[in-house]
Structure formats: C-alpha cells, structure tokens
C-alpha cells in the first residue's frame, strides 16, 4: 500500500465528512505530485481564498450599509 492509500484509509470522520476529506486528500496528493510542498500550500490557499474572498466581499458590502 502506498502513502496515498495509507493516508486515505486512515482519514477519520462520519460518512459525509469522510467522503469529502478523502476527495480533498486526493486533491492534495495530486497537487503534491505535481508541485511538491508548494502545490499543497497552493491548493489549500486556493480553498481558503475562495472562502476569504467571498467573506471579505460580503463584509465590505455590509459595512458600507451599516
């Protein structure tokens, strides 16, 4: 068993979370295999950015209205 499968099998969580986490792990692995550590950082940053950017946009809009 290689490291991808090993980690994939070990990831914990309920049914919903497990599927999501395993999928996420696959994304991390393929980013790592393409670009190493930077790839991992990049995929995580991309995920967080999609949240933070939307959050910041909403916050700006609501602060203007307040």
């Amino acid at each position, binding site marked *: 068993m*290689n*490291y991808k499968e*090993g*980690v*994939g099998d*070990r*990831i*914990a*969580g309920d049914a919903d*979370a497990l599927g*999501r*986490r395993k999928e*996420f*792990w696959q994304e*991390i*692995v393929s980013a*790592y*295999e*393409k*670009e*190493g*550590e*930077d*790839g*991992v*950082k990049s995929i*995580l*940053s991309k*995920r*967080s950015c999609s*949240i*933070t950017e*939307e*959050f*910041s946009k*909403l*916050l700006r*809009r*609501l*602060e203007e*209205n*307040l």
Partner: protein
Amino acid sequence: MINLRRLKIKGFRAYTETKEFNFNSPMVLLLGENHRGKSSTLNAIEWCLFGKECMGKGTGIRERINWEVPNRNMKPPGVSVILELEDGKKRRYVIWRTLSPRGRGRSLEEKLRVTLPEGSSVEGEEAKEKLTQLIKLSFRDFLTIVYQHQEAIRAVLTQEPRDRNDAIDRLLGLSDYRNILTGIEAARLEKEQREIGASFDGFAEKVEVALRTQRSDLRDRVERAAKKGVKKSQLNEREALKIAKDAKNQLLQFAHQIGLVLPDISPPEGWKGLLQFQTLLEGEIKRFRSEMPEVKRQQDLFRERSKIMELREGYRREKERGDDIRQRFQGFLREKGSNKVLDGKIEGIIEEIDSQEKKLKKVNARAALIRDAIEYLSCGVRSSQDRCPLCGNAAPDLAEHLKEEWEKRVGNEVHKFQKQMEDLRINLKELKDLSEEYGRLKEKLKSAEETLKEINRKIAQALGREITERDDPYVLVNKKLDSIDKELKKLEDAVRSRQGILDDIAHLLDKIELIVDILNSEEKKRIVEEIQASPEYRRMEELKDEFAILLDDIDKIKQAVSEISHEEARQKVGAAEKVIDNYFREIASNPWVSNIEFSVSVDSRTARNHYEFRDQHGKDLTPILSQGDLNAMALSIFLGMATSRAVKESFGFVMLDDPSQSLGSGHKEKLIEVLDEVLKDRMVVLSSMDKELQDLVFSKITGAKTKYVFSNWTPEEGPQVREE
C-alpha cells in the same frame, strides 16, 4: 532481485558522446575529482528507471528543482540512456529512455521502451507498466534503499533537530509525509481562520452595538416627543405629512391676515423631505415675526420714544444749566455791580495811579540831586569833605549826614508812593478780573439760552407743533411720551397675539422635527436589523463555519498523515534497528557507545516524526556526536535500510554517492569493512573523489572490482572515462 548489467549514456546532463559502463563485478567504482561526471552517471540510472518522477519539487531534493536533463552542447539536442538489467532468474531487460526533438520544434519528447528477455519490445504506457512490474519500488523507495544521495547525508549533518528529522524521514522514505505536512503548515490557514473569526465577531459586535444604540435613541426620542405633546398615534409618516400641511396652511392664512406674502413652499411627498420643509417654514416664521406691521409700528414708536426721551433729557439738563448760570449772574450783579459800575471804578483807579506816578517822579528828581551831592562829597578832596560846598562853613561828616537824611526823608516818601501804587494796581487787577468774569457769565448765559432754544426747536419738530414762550416743553414732551406708551401697550397686546399664532405654527414644526427624528431612528434600526437578517450576513456566518470545516478536514488529514508516517517510520526503524545499530557502532567506533537505541516518536507540536538516538544508558546521543559520527549515522541508516531483510528486496545493488564527506580515517576504514559485508548481498556502485577511501577499497574490499576513472570533463566531449 534486479541487478545492473550495462549502462549506455548519451547527451544526459554532463554527457555528450556515448559512454558505456559494465557492471560485472560486485563492486563498481566511479572515481575522480569533483565535476567530472560521476554523479551524472548515477543520475542517469535513476532517470532511466523513473523518468520525470525523479525531477522537480515533488522529489523533496532541492537540486532537482529546475533540473536540466539534456546536455546543452548536444547538437541536435537529444538524450539517450540505455540500462540493461537482470532479474534473479538471469533474464535480461533493456530499458531505453530517450529525449528527442518533437517534430521541427525545440521541445523534446520523452520516450520509454522496454526490451523484454525474449527480445520483444514494448513502448509508452505498456513499457511504463512493464518497468513498474519489474522494479516494484517507487522513486522514493529507490532513494531510501538503493541510491544514497549526497544531499541526504548533508542534511543529517545539520545540528538543527527539525532538519535532521527531515533528513532521517527521507532516508527512511517518508519525506512525502513530511513534505505534505510542511505544505499544509505553509498555507497558514489557522491564522486566516482567526482573522475570519475576528472579522466576523468584530462585525457582529458592531451590528449589536449599532442596534442597541438605535433602540436606545429611539426610546429617548419617543419619550421626548411625548413630553412635547406628540401623541403615539402621530409617530408616523402620514401624520407628520398632515402636520406639515396644517402648518403651511396656518402660516398662509397668517400671512394673508397681516398682508405679507408666503412663498410657494409645498409639503414633501415623503417624510425624508420634511426637515427641509420645516427649515424653510421656520425661516418664514422668523421673517413674519420681524416684518408684521404691528412689529414695524412698535419699532417706529420705540425709535420715536427713545428720541423724545433723549430730547427731554437734553431739555432738562440745559434748563438746569441755564437756570444755574442765570442765578450766578444775578448774584454777581448784586454783589459786584454791573459792567458799567466796574468800568467806572477801573477808570478812577487808573487816574489815581497816574497822579501818584507824577508825584513819585518829582520826588525822584529831588532825590537825584541829593544823590549827586553825596557822590561829589564822597569823591572830592578830603579837606572839602567837612565843609559845606554851598556856604563853605565847617560841616564835619557832611556826606554821611546827607546820606542819612536822604535815606530818611526821600526813601520813606518813595516807599509810601510805591506802596500806594501797588495797592492801586492790585485793586485794578481785581476789578479787571471781575469785569472779565462778568463777560464770561454773560456769554455762558447767552449760550445756554441758545442751546435751550435749539432743543425746543427739536422738540417742536419731534412733536410736530410750534412751541411758544407760553409753552412748557417738558410737559409737552411728557404728554407725548404718555401717548406713545399707550399706543405701545396696545401694540404689545396685538403683537403678542400674532406671535402666539406663529408660536403655535412653530410648535407644529417642532413636532415634525421630533417625528422625523423618530422615523430616522426607526429607519436606521431597520437597516441594522435587515443587515443582521440579511442573506449576506447569514452567508458570512456559513463561510466562517465552512472555514472551520475546512480546517477540521485538514486537521484530520494531517492527523492521518502523521499517524501513517509514524507507523511506517516505527515499522522501518524496528525492522532495521539492529542492522543500523551494528553498522553505526562499526563505522563510528565511538568508545562511549556500546549500544544504540534508534527510536521514533511523534512531535505533538508539529505532528512530525521525531527521531532519537540513545546510548546504552538511555541518554540522548546527538549532542555528543561529531560530524563524522553523524555522517556515519546517515550511512548506517541507509545501509541498514538497504540491506534489512524486512524491507523489499527488489534491487540487488546499492549506489553510494561520495559517502565519506565528513568521515575521518577511522570512520572510512570502518565504512569499507561494512561495505565488504554489504557486498555479500548486494552489488555496490560507489562514486568517490576521496583518495583515502579509494585506497581502502583496494586494500580492504575482498570482492572483485571494476574501476572507472573520470579523468577530465569538457563541455564539448563530456567526461573522459576509462575502465581500469
């Protein structure tokens, strides 16, 4: 087990021309100075086996980032590495990996071909599959148990525990786990989560504060409005607009009553225009207050009253002054007489002074004669001094006698005249002063009478009637003031009544302002409530939760990575521990260390593997290990992993690239002894620039050796290699 048999290299990294290597001896040596192409030879083997897998960031080897495979001096560019392998059943496989120009372009295309033992060849994906089946190991495993890379030893030599743990992970083939954990940490998502959390909490708090403020404002304003008589039922837009309309109509009616014009100011359609409307109407009220006819008349009367009072005061003052002067004048006449009397007296005194002066002159003439005689007697011959010059009779001390006589008679007379004249002159001066005072009093009296006359004229003008000698202006003025006061009183009542109407209208406008303030507060409160209930606000909350979920997912993944990495490390360390211990003790030969316990734990802070080397007493060895010991440790781990029965045994050879970097002579000798042991199971391909190690190889290694000497390297021809 797979063994090396033959290697042909062309155009790969340091290589230009084709070079061939045979691996027929248990030990193959690649000897030569730095930059002669030794490492390129070992790299060619791994590239041929793993292709792109051994390049780039994913390898975890720093020098593999931007690693250039084709030699730059090859014209046309092209790479060809052919590796002949033999399995345990002596079957030969030939691996061909090439890079050749794609069409007419400058890019190179990688191709893989595997020639199978029976002579057939497969290419592309099929070749890749065959190769994977043959070698069984991943590139990472290859680095752990076949190819001891220089960088792995350099990393173990570091004094930084984290870097050393990293290096040992790599030696154990666990660098992927560590690299992934490093990549996850580098994203610093916890910091972003804290920022998102703080931003959301900060905003939520701001919303709450705004809401509390607006509610409190609203409560205060409603209370204030109630105190000002605004009913609860009026606290809405419709009522506010109705009041505005009423106010305007009332002001219009008022303007009509007092004969003024109200500009066309229309009440607004909605409450937001009410404040502007209120301001305009307040301006008009202010104007009406000052411009209404009664007020104008009041102002005129006040001005007139003030002027008349001023004249009355002037009249009173001048009248008193005139009376005073007149009294003083009459007193003067009584006491000192008129000007005519005074002039007569003055004339008499002047005449008397003249008469006295004449008398004095006569006395003075006689006095001059006597003075001459005295002088004559005083200055003449001494004998004549005692004789009278007129009669010639003896007159002893005549001059002295005359002097005394003169003093007595003439002097007294002159003094008397002088005294009388002085008295007369004083008298004359007093009379003249009185005469002047008379003139002044008379002048003042005249001036006072003229001033009074002028005031009378002004009073007449102010009263609008003639004032004769028979009138008392003071009484007339007082009568006029009475009539003004009466009119003012009447006006005051009228103005009060008018201002009352305007006050009522202003009160309506105040109500409007209070209601508008309340409507404003309500709107602000509504906006804040809407923000709190908005989909955007809810979405922000969701995003905050999504971030927490993301972080939780990452945490669980990290946990899985850490656990698997630790389990694998523990399993590998456990399997190879004895061998590693033996090799280390053998190579390092440290007299203080009779036994090494190599263990792994999880660093709770970083979730990474943490390796410890303890001596027979359970004490940490790393603080006392020299660079040579650390190098020995790196080699022991590699060789331990490479030769351990517990790990996969797909390869029958190990490759060591310059293993003696920091080893002393003793360490090197011991390493050679260990390698001689390794040679019993594995072929050893050793690359070295170290002469001492080379000598030791030839004197201590019992197995047969093939020696390739890398004597020179030029960009055009590549390495000069000869087999010895």
